[in-house]
């Protein structure tokens, strides 16, 4: 138990910081995922076959390939891709991308694929009359999307987005292979230096359980709040 105390001899403070790191990566990944979803959802619903194919390719590949493989692709491929772009502009030194950015980006792309499917389902379940009414009232496409469709879409997608959040939160544990010090990596380091893996991995499991438990509570509150009018 002494090992979990705060201060120089214990791992308590390190684990606390690592927990905050996990939260930060998850939130960043979820946010990047939203951006991807907001780009790909319109492509998925568009009447253009070519755009459909691009969006379906994205969601099918990312949801069908293991997360770990995607992370390896960005971990090993990310810096060389950026170095290639930089060399075009005449910069030839070695560039290393920050582990946080690699991690948030690769998990973000994964969570984006799930969010795209959630948004698509939500938009499709919005009453047709809403679209027709906004057309009759003379809204243009952009205002219609931001003022009428988006608010309803977000409300409808909260329950499913909570699943995406849980998946994203758990997926961040895989970023530990790239060396970012989040819960899993910190437990690995602690387990290695104290030779007590059982204790530290159990603590990691408990920390994840606390995170999922608390986020469920918050999401449930949000659901109640946004469903007040219905």
């Amino acid at each position, binding site marked *: 138990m002494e090992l979990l105390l705060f201060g120089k001899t214990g791992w308590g403070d390190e684990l606390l910081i690592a927990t905050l790191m996990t939260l930060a990566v998850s939130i960043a990944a979820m946010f990047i995922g939203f951006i991807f979803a907001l780009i790909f959802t319109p492509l998925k619903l568009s009447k253009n076959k070519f755009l459909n194919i691009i969006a379906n390719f994205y969601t*099918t*590949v990312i949801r*069908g*390939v*293991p*997360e*770990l*493989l995607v992370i*390896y*692709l960005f*971990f*090993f*491929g990310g810096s*060389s891709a950026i170095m290639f772009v930089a060399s075009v502009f005449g910069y030839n030194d070695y560039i290393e991308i920050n582990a946080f950015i690699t991690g948030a980006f690769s998990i973000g792309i994964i969570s984006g694929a799930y969010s795209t499917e959630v948004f698509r389902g939500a938009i499709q379940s919005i009453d047709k009359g809403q679209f027709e009414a906004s057309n009759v009232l003379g809204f243009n496409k952009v205002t219609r999307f931001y003022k009428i469709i988006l608010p309803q879409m977000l409300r409808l997608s909260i329950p499913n987005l909570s699943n995406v959040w*849980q998946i994203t939160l*758990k*997926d961040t*544990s*895989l970023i*530990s*292979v790239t060396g970012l010090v989040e819960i*899993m990596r910190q*437990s*690995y380091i602690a*387990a290695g230096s104290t*030779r*007590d*893996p*059982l204790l530290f*991995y*159990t603590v*990691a*499991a408990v920390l*994840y*359980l606390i995170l*999922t*438990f608390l986020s469920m509570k918050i999401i449930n509150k949000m659901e109640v709040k946004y469903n007040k009018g219905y």
Partner: protein
Amino acid sequence: MDIELILNSFPKLLSASVTTLKLLSVSMIIGLFIGLFFAIMRIKNNIFLGKLAYAYSYIFRGTPLLVQIFIIYYGFGQVEYIRESFLWVILKEPYWCAIIAFALNTGAYTSEILRSAFQTIKPGFIEAGKSLGVPNKIIFYKIQIPIAIRQSLPAYGNEIILMLKGTSLASTVTLMDLTGVAKFIISTTFKPIEVFIIAGSIYLFITFIIHNLIKALEKKYSF
């Protein structure tokens, strides 16, 4: 694009996918029994057993699979009591540790899928069985279980695909499955894109087959 690397690594990755499929099928079979067991615990009106089964599914669904594998592979090996018992024969092998973790993980999800399937069975089916004088046990095995299995097929198909992706974590405990070999080739050649394309296509191909198998089963057992 390095065509030679693609041609060279394809057979290696293909043979590694056999390990992936083995891990998947063994853990799915064990997980199905675990899931059925805990689902039955949930639907019996015993509060204690129900809570126990709920705690199991909550813990395994609320923590990452990676933590579960690490606890079983690195954590249990540290306990003297386990190392001296017969369990050590199984727990010292990374292969079996991975399978235990996968089976327990998928068991938790399967128990939720089956529980909701049991709960959506129309009471009329069970009442009809009772009024015909069919014993409770036979009602359970001949009416409830087949209907529950049919109901849960689509969700279970998703679970198999999620687990296929989950088996990639076996590479973190030194097993050379599809992802393990892919990572090895990437880290020796530094050509992530080529390897990703092949390994990814193999995974997608397996996903495609599972998807179609489940669809065929759904059609066969639809009513």
